[in-house]
């Protein structure tokens, strides 16, 4: 074939790919192409979220993108030798390379998802506004600019969208409160994006920020129009440097093209957006602690009421939403509330980007409508553990989520169904452990984590967590075990009902679920495998 058609190569710029050497691989491919006289163009796309295949290299072909992964820097030579960068027009594409996975979008892991919020992720160049616009980007904002503020709020309410950070509060109701509250002293209202994604096992916020930043910016801009806010902040974890860099870059681009600033799309509406870097305090993922931190103070939880919607950032009416919540908004406006509402079941409407993590063979991001079972997620998508041992426990919803045994894997992933078994979906993180896990150790870790990360404002969380670690130590060492188990349960009860925020009130979830479902691990007899 002629070399006149340059080969288009995709290699992700997501943190996962970078952590697995994607930058070096890209450099090597460029060098090899040059020395072999091959014309190719590398696009640093987002990640498809199939983490076990990362770094996933894709080649554009007339049939669709063909994938190769996981690619190591030492595989580059053989990929060139196999002709994958030169045989584009050929009907027998070199899919016989050992790393070939064939047509990427035909893989069951992707094909069986309902990619609604993540529809562009992995396909586009995250920082290409043209790419974004070519894939329905800013269609939601265009629609919102034609609507009254109250109609935007009504659309979000009708979609059934609930807060994706974990609390699952109806987004439309929160927005309505902010819309109808007058700011003090004629100051502005605020939109705050909670991107302090501290839960282990969760990375969907990071993926949005790194792989489709304009979607978050658009969602926040629509929120601003809906409630009459003019200033927004994205509070991002310091552990996410690439997300911060990508967002800053995207905000600059959006500003240059009139999508942010003092006159958005010549509408007369202003919205100024800024990224703020957090500083490693887990509790700042709690909304009022986050606001304290944004105001320049220690991230100490505020008592509620007053609600942030009425008395939020700098005392002004404030929308504070998670990244995924805000990222769902552009599509709701572009396609209508009914489109989003048609996904899901019961009171859990729409989709959730689940994150399969820990000891899982096919880990990554799975966006599905609410209602599939945990088992479908773990087996059909995840393909079981990476260690090929049986799954023993699964923690759903981050460090404050319950540990579930195999007998509960048929629970549908739905906010109410999970609440009914004393668990929480939280932010959709699913961490898998095989049979080598020591559940007493995990319970102790949950209490210890709470002791370290507690903001210290309320006693049940601050002191309860430390006493909890001691009680678990005594249980494991068989010092007055029955009494100490009673004490631990009592302590968990106080923490659950007496703490100011989820940090203290939800730490009992992992602790008690470990104790209830895996009591054999609390006898001090657990063998280390």
């Amino acid at each position: 074939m002629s070399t006149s058609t340059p080969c288009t190569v995709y290699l992700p710029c997501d943190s996962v790919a970078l952590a697995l050497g994607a930058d070096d691989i890209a450099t090597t491919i460029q060098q090899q192409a040059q020395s072999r006289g091959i014309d190719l163009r590398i696009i640093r796309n987002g990640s498809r979220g199939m983490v076990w295949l990362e770094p996933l290299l894709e080649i554009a072909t007339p049939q669709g993108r063909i994938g190769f992964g996981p690619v190591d820097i030492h595989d580059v030579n053989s990929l060139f030798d196999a002709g994958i960068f030169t045989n584009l027009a050929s009907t027998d594409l070199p899919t016989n390379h050992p790393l070939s996975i064939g047509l990427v979008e035909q893989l069951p892991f992707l094909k069986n998802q309902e990619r609604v919020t993540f529809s562009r992720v992995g396909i586009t160049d995250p920082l290409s506004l043209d790419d974004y616009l070519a894939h329905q980007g800013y269609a939601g904002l265009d629609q919102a600019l034609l609507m009254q503020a109250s109609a935007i709020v009504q659309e979000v309410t009708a979609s059934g969208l609930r807060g994706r950070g974990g609390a699952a509060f109806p987004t439309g109701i929160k927005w309505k409160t902010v819309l109808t509250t007058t700011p003090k002293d004629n100051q502005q209202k605020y939109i705050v994006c909670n991107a302090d994604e501290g839960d282990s096992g969760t990375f969907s916020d990071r993926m949005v920020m790194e792989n489709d930043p304009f979607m978050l910016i658009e969602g926040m801009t629509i929120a601003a129009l809906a409630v009459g806010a003019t200033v927004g902040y994205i509070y991002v974890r310091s552990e996410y440097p690439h997300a911060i860099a990508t967002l800053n870059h995207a905000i600059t681009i959006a500003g240059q093209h009139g999508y942010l600033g003092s006159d958005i799309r010549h509408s007369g509406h202003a919205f100024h957006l800024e990224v703020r870097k957090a500083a490693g305090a887990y509790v700042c993922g709690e909304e009022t602690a986050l606001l304290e931190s944004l105001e320049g103070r220690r991230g100490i939880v505020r008592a509620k009421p007053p609600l942030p919607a009425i008395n939020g950032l700098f005392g002004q009416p404030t929308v504070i939403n998670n990244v995924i919540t805000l990222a769902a908004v552009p599509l709701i406006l572009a396609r209508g509330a009914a489109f989003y509402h048609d996904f899901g079941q019961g009171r859990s409407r729409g989709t959730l980007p689940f994150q399969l993590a820990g000891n899982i063979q096919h880990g990554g991001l799975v966006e599905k409508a609410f209602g599939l079972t945990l088992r479908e997620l773990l087996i059909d998508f995840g393909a079981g553990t990476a260690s090929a041992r049986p799954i023993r426990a699964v923690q759903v919803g981050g460090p404050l989520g319950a540990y579930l045994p195999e007998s509960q894997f048929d629970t549908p992933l739905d906010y109410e169904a999970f609440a009914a078994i004393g668990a929480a979906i939280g932010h959709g993180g699913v961490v898998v452990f095989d049979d080598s896990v020591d559940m007493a150790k995990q319970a102790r870790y949950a209490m210890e984590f709470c002791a370290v990360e507690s903001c210290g404002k309320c006693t049940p969380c601050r002191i309860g967590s430390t006493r909890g670690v001691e009680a678990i130590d005594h249980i494991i060492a068989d010092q007055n075990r029955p009494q100490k188990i009673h004490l631990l349960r009592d302590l968990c009860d106080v923490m659950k009902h007496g703490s100011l925020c989820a940090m203290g009130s939800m730490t009992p979830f992992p602790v008690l679920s470990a104790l209830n479902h895996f009591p054999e691990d609390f006898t001090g007899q657990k063998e280390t495998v």
Partner: protein
Amino acid sequence: MTTQNQAPGISDATQSCDHSSSEGCSSDHSNSDQLSALIARHCGMSGALLPVLHAIQDNIGFIPEMAVPLIADALNLSRAEVHGVITYYHHFRQTPPGRTVIQVCRAEACQARGADKLAQHVQTQLGCDFHATTADGSFTLESVYCLGLCACGPAITMNDQLYARVSPEKFNQLLKQGNV
């Protein structure tokens, strides 16, 4: 609310951190002129304290004690308030870090992939405990609770560079490859 006011992106931060961490131990890089300039550049922001502290740490590698009264003065806060914020957040350091800062993720998803074993291995290899710096100033070892690489653990950072699927053997290789 202009772009100049935004917290610096990582590319700036990484470069300046590399620069200062190689010199941070040997010379007092943190003269008050530099500090004052950094504070002046960010103190006009609303809720400026965290951006100011980040600017200092990104450029100098830590928050020197002499910065506290300067910040307090610029932001009209008490020194206690500034000190309280610095010590509240895990991210901020009050002493210069070693030339290579290694963070090991110790959260649940990485635990499920052998992070505890890796953490022990790293401690032994470096001869350094967590939250400590080796006597020769080569390494600072820190825990981190989640880098968002939860489906390809264990994960670590080495001078802000991310690494995933880090076995003890891979860690040794990274140490060998690094300029350490």
